[in-house]
């Protein structure tokens, strides 16, 4: 009987209990750690795919330009060239997937959203004071949104 194994009974019981608990812990860990964890770093690598799987809401200007090239060309010549179509026309996904479904008509109060004067807006921005600038008229009577530099 090797001498080092002659441990007092309390110690033996405690050591066995400890080994049992530790084994249980590692077994649980083996089964329950999610797959792909730790592949790229301390996270579930599959999370990248999960997050990327979300469905986009806005179609993006490129989708509009695919069909509406004439409007896009006109837009590219004026000050509104940096705008995305959906910024004014609203979400276009439905229309891209089913071109028969047209987008709703626009309300001209949309123009004021950007162009109404505010002292916080930068100086390069063309701003108007609604009360002074042809009150009672609709913006599109004089301005062409796709080619804002052209004033009839």
């Amino acid at each position, binding site marked *: 009987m090797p001498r080092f194994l002659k441990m*007092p009974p*309390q110690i033996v019981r405690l050591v066995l209990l400890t080994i049992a608990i530790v084994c249980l812990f590692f077994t*649980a860990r083996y089964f329950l750690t999610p797959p792909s964890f730790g592949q790229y770093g*301390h996270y579930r690598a599959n999370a990248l795919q999960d997050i990327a799987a979300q469905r986009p809401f806005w179609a993006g200007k490129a989708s509009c330009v695919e069909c509406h090239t004439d409007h896009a060309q006109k837009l590219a010549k004026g000050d509104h060239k940096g705008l995305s179509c959906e910024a004014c026309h609203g979400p276009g996904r439905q229309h891209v997937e089913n071109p028969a479904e047209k987008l709703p008509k626009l309300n001209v109060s949309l123009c004021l959203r950007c162009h109404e004067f505010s002292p916080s807006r930068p100086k390069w921005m063309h701003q108007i004071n609604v009360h002074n600038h042809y009150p009672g008229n609709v913006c599109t009577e004089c301005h062409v949104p796709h080619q804002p530099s052209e004033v009839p």
Partner: protein
Amino acid sequence: MMNASLVTNVMEALPQIQGYVYPNEQTLHPLWSVLIVVYPYITGLVAGAFIMASLVRVFQVKALDPTYRLALLTALAFLLCAPLPLLFHLGHPERCFEIMLTPHFSSPMAMFGFVYAWYLMAVLLLELWFDYRRDFVQWSLTEPGYRGIIYRAFTLGVTDLSEPALRLDARMGRVISIVGIPSAFLLHGYVGFIFGSIKANPWWGNVLMPIIFILSAIVSGMALCVFVYMVLCWARRIAADIRCLDLMTTFLFYALVLDVSIEGLDWMHRLYSAEEGIDVLRSLASSKLFYTLLIGQACLGTMIPFLLLGATQLFRRRIKELNRRRAYFSSAVLILMGVLAMRWNVVIGGQLFSKSMRGFMSYKMEFAGSEGWLLSIALLVLPFAILIVLVRLFLAPELPTIENVVPGAKSRAKAQEAGH
């Protein structure tokens, strides 16, 4: 387009803010609310009660013997309740095991699972087992019914009561106490580190935070031991040993002195170095936290006990025993409330101002609900309920102890009983 009446309704339901706060900070309740106040309070009490018990084992302070087992059982009762506030707070408590499966070692919070398990099993339960082992063996033979079964289970099948076995028990108890002191510091210190490591929040992110947490934990745990001991003796209609009380409160006083010094140092340093955001913090301390910090924590929870305990230290011979007992009890209660106020001031206080340093938030505490008063009070009362059960099982005066069956001890025991 926004509906005008909808806007009005939403505005009324919005939380009250002053100045500018980041939009995501405009929540109805603080993110870490009263449950996260209760959690460090509970682990602090555990650490402090354990330190008190260790004074007996490690530093051989014999006069504290009557409170040794009570202190350990108190620590156990509170430790068992410690994970509850966290589980109630988590957004997904069913995923709590992830902290043990994939702990992120750069996060102090990840330590929780392991430190808690280590402290519960390898320190507290083990020390209790070694101290109670011979009593378990005795009681498993003499006690009837379900209690006998409980005691037999706790013996873990080891019935050796020989002299070498008992000497080993005593030695193991001392070893575990020594190991247990840094473990207790770790159990509570990591919480202080959680707050101290948040550099984004100037109220929290501070090098002294873990140390302040540990020191106030020790103070609160010792006060809890005094409180529980006096209440238990009152419940059993016996006089609490005055020498034991004198000594416990001596330790309590010096712990309080240390705690006050370090917290004072923290304040002085902040005010002197006046880093960015000091105006916001000063305004926070003097207006939003006026009642809980200046009145509750500083005045009632620290200054008054400091004076009371200091007086009993300086003028011990001149103060009557009854008055000393009154002073000890009231100091213990005030300190317990003061340390709870301190946790509140740290946790909630840190969420009352915006990280933009330009504004303040106000919160209303709800009564029922997962972050409400009712749950917090229940979580603070539950450990006492568990303690009552533990005392019934393990500290009942009727239970015979090994001393009673050793020749000569019976007469001493009889004399003690006659004295009650």
